[in-house]
């Protein structure tokens, strides 16, 4: 679980690092999820359509309740 609640800015390198984590998790058959995306950060996931790829939760609490 990656808590992005305090992240105000993400660029293509940041997205790439998260994708790397996602792919790594798939290879190990384990979970990888993101939580607490700020609106402008979330907009970057949407622009690149990566919101379809990642498991995304509104906040850490919601993610841990699953």
């Amino acid at each position: 679980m990656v808590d992005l609640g305090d992240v105000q800015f993400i660029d293509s390198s940041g997205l790439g690092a998260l994708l790397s984590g996602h792919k790594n998790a798939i290879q190990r058959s384990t979970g990888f999820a993101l939580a607490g995306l700020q609106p402008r950060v979330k907009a970057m996931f949407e622009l690149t359509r990566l919101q379809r790829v990642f498991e995304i939760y509104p906040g850490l609490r919601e993610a841990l309740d699953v």
Partner: protein
Amino acid sequence: MHDVRDHPEFGYHGSSQTRYLRLIGNIAEQLARDLDGEKSDREALAYHLNLVVTEAVTNAIQYGCANERKDKIRILLSIENSDLCVRVYDYGQGFDFEAVPTPDIDELSERGRGIFFIRSLMDHVEYRKTESGNVLEMKKRIT
């Protein structure tokens, strides 16, 4: 507040291996935030400006490594008429801007989204090779 009669310029010229590059992104962000207009739009523009500057600089560092000036970079932010302009110069071999593909969502590559961001978020983007280096010119309408 921005006055269209002014044509302010803000620049950086120096090593590409420096923490000051982060500062240029922040200046771009603040410049956008300081313009007249709807505040929420300006906040989005501020983010986008910081992002494209960051991406362009990353790109210039990656492709601008060919000669003795390889670690030098020049960044110019300006307001020209109704455009906010960002120009990032490097002195390397450059690259074929038009050939950079749109990222394939099914491929999930960790790389290749920087130019996509720049193309998506700016109104005019042009990459030119000149005698004194390469320049990536990006413009966003602000009126």
